[in-house]
């Protein structure tokens, strides 16, 4: 359907993005490998790296387990109560932590579960002595559950709601008791998606950086990512950073391979209490159980958010928002986020164009197919090589050329772009494909020129998904602390970095206020994103 020129251009764009991303990631890895290689090997398996590795895996396993185990009753309750008052809002609330900058969530959790937090003073009154510590392993687990329980619950709920409506009619007509319904209907449906969900959460927790940085304490509670950062930033021990980076890549590669064996979970088909009708669970114990599950989960999610809002309002927002430090950081963040967002959208478009050109060939040879597959892989390369590792590589690469801080904003923007790429691709690729399917023949037969086609046919339809993708990418970049952590300084201060440094210097009032502002910006951007995505799903 494409003209020869169009196909050539598509391949060209694809090739450009492939080379660009390949070079950026490749140089980082080469820099890691070539730096003082002899020394690194001996550092790869020491008692220290062994301890870090063990803790990384331990906390990831426990976080995954707790998230899924607690998400299951919540999802079951929500599925069984399609008319629960405020159900739509509970489900929307569960989408919130995904758009919330991790650092902000951590602050909220400290507000509730911290030493002076609501929960501990409550437990103290009940006669217990500081039973929950927000720092160390328990704090990391708490935070990971806060971010991943809602994710797991949403995915489980979607799986339950995809079951045919007849199943519920049949089960009630056959007289199945709650345990039978669980055993014969709900659990088999959940069991199919749990491996995929657990894999996803394990990946997120094994590569979690910000939460561990803020809540982890010392070498006893440090993950690979944070250890890499500390090796460079505090100890300046590049061989150790490199050894840890290589371990990190090895671990993520293993996890990615394991995940690819299971079907990918998705939350499409989740309803806002549509026609699903359930006739089971009408007894009082069942009602009570479901209500408790939903209310407890809601409270668990709402309280930290409310704590951010409450603490933020106490801070002098106006003074903060007009302070030069804030304005400078906001401007830096905005420039980086906008560059990262635009770059991510453009790169996605180039990748999609390249894959489209290959798909359009009548006889795509092995080279063309390899090209198309590597383009697909490129978009999620950042999952394999995490931001801190990329940052470390470039840090070592650029150090001989002078002050790394000069290159830092560009590096942070590119790393943010790579982090956003998988999400942006997931929004844009289906939208573009549908659009091409609808219009390709017609446009080709009308012989529309490139410009008028882009202006009259493509832009009006694609404006929304493009905006969605851009706002997603910008929210991600605005809230990210991982990429900036290595380079953050008085010269390069983004909003999350400002929050983090205020937190480190115990100016928590400022941190709370800034967190509230940043949280609201990011959530607003994510809301633009999800609203657009939901409509795209209907088309």
């Amino acid at each position, binding site marked *: 359907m494409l003209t020869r020129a169009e196909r050539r251009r598509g391949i060209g764009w694809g090739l450009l993005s492939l080379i660009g991303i390949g070079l950026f990631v490749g140089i980082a890895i080469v820099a890691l490998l070539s730096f003082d290689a002899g020394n690194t090997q001996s550092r790869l398996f020491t008692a220290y790296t062994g301890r870090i590795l063990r803790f990384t895996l331990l906390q990831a396993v426990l976080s995954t387990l707790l998230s899924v185990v607690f998400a299951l009753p919540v999802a079951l309750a929500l599925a069984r109560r399609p008319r629960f008052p405020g159900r739509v809002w509970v489900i929307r609330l569960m989408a919130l932590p995904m758009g919330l900058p991790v650092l902000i969530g951590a602050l909220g959790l400290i507000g509730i579960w911290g030493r002076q937090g609501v929960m501990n003073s409550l437990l103290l009154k009940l006669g217990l002595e500081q039973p929950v510590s927000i720092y160390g392993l328990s704090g990391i687990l708490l935070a990971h559950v806060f971010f991943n329980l809602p994710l797991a619950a949403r995915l489980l709920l979607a799986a339950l709601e995809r079951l045919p409506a007849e199943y519920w*009619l049949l089960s009630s007509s056959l007289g199945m*008791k709650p345990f039978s319904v669980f055993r*014969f*209907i709900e659990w088999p449906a959940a069991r199919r998606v749990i491996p995929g969900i657990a894999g996803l959460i394990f990946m997120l927790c094994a590569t979690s950086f910000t939460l561990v940085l803020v809540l982890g304490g010392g070498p006893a509670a440090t993950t690979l990512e944070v250890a890499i950062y500390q090796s460079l930033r505090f100890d300046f021990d590049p061989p150790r950073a490199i050894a840890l980076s290589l371990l990190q890549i090895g671990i993520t590669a293993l996890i990615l391979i394991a995940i690819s064996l299971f079907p990918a979970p998705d939350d499409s088909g989740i309803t806002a209490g549509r026609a699903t009708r359930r006739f089971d669970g009408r007894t009082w114990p069942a009602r009570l159980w479901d209500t408790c599950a939903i209310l407890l989960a809601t409270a668990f999610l709402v309280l930290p958010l409310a704590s951010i809002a409450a603490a933020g309002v106490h801070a002098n927002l106006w003074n903060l928002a007009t302070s030069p430090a804030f304005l400078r950081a906001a401007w830096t963040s905005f420039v980086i986020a906008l560059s990262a967002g635009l770059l991510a959208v453009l790169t996605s478009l180039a990748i999609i164009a390249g894959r489209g050109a290959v798909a359009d060939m009548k006889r795509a040879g092995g080279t063309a197919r390899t090209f198309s597959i590597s383009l697909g892989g490129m978009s999620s390369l950042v999952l394999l090589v995490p931001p801190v590792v990329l940052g470390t590589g470039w840090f070592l690469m650029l150090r001989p050329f002078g002050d790394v801080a000069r290159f830092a904003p560009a590096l942070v923007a590119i790393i943010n772009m790579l982090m956003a790429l998988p999400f942006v691709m997931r929004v844009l690729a289906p939208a573009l494909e549908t659009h091409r399917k609808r219009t390709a023949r017609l446009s080709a037969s009308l012989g529309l020129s490139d410009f008028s086609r882009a202006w009259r046919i493509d832009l009006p339809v694609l404006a929304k998904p493009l905006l969605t993708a851009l706002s997603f990418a910008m929210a991600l970049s605005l809230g990210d602390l991982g990429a900036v952590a290595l380079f953050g300084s008085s010269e390069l201060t983004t909003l999350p970095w400002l929050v983090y440094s205020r937190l480190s210097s115990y100016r928590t009032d400022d941190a709370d206020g800034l967190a509230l502002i940043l949280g609201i910006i990011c959530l607003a951007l994510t809301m633009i994103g999800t609203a657009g995505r939901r409509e795209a799903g209907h088309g």
Partner: protein
Amino acid sequence: MADGIVLKKVELKLGTREFRFDCAVPAGAVTAITGPSGSGKSTFLNLVAGFETPDRGHILIAGEDVTGKHPSERPVSLVFQDNNLFAHLDLATNIGLGINPSLKLSGNDRAAISQALERVDLSGFEKRMPGTLSGGERQRAAFARALVRKKPVLLMDEPFAALDPGLRLSMAGLLIDLHRETGNTVLIVTHDPNEVGRLADHAIFIDRGQILLQAPAEEFLARRDIPALAEFLSG
């Protein structure tokens, strides 16, 4: 003839749609429920099955008032157009759930399952998964479950609509045979006038939530004085 199912001045409002049903369905016979799409055929069936509760009026099955009863407490078996079997459970389990919803089965129960499968020409299919069966075989397995449940009333919502025409004929034959053996009361929702002639002793015509005609099948198929029915019968 005794009344199998009675809807006594039943009224129900769903959103903006109102339904009024007042009728008696004869026991031990096959009654077809027909009407244009959206007329209320399935709502009628849902009222009998207990998936809808009337705002006013009473529903009696075999002389017993079941108006406020949960679906599981009503003496009925169900066959839908599709998804009659839990896709992740084998046929023996699917049918066994019809005998005991916690799947506590005795040796006799297992024998009954095998016999029922044999009766619907699926002998030896105990361990087969629904996904490996054809559409007709899946509906026959649903019949087998209805058989083992031994309930006096069988409710079917367009059970053959997803099958091709040749298969519909043989399935109708099987249904008639099973009906003769069990003597149960059958309500079958259908939008196919041929199926009324093929299967039913009686027929009910519903239009816009009201019963316009209830008559023996021959009379029903010959009537031309009700415009909506005439249009339905002419296809």
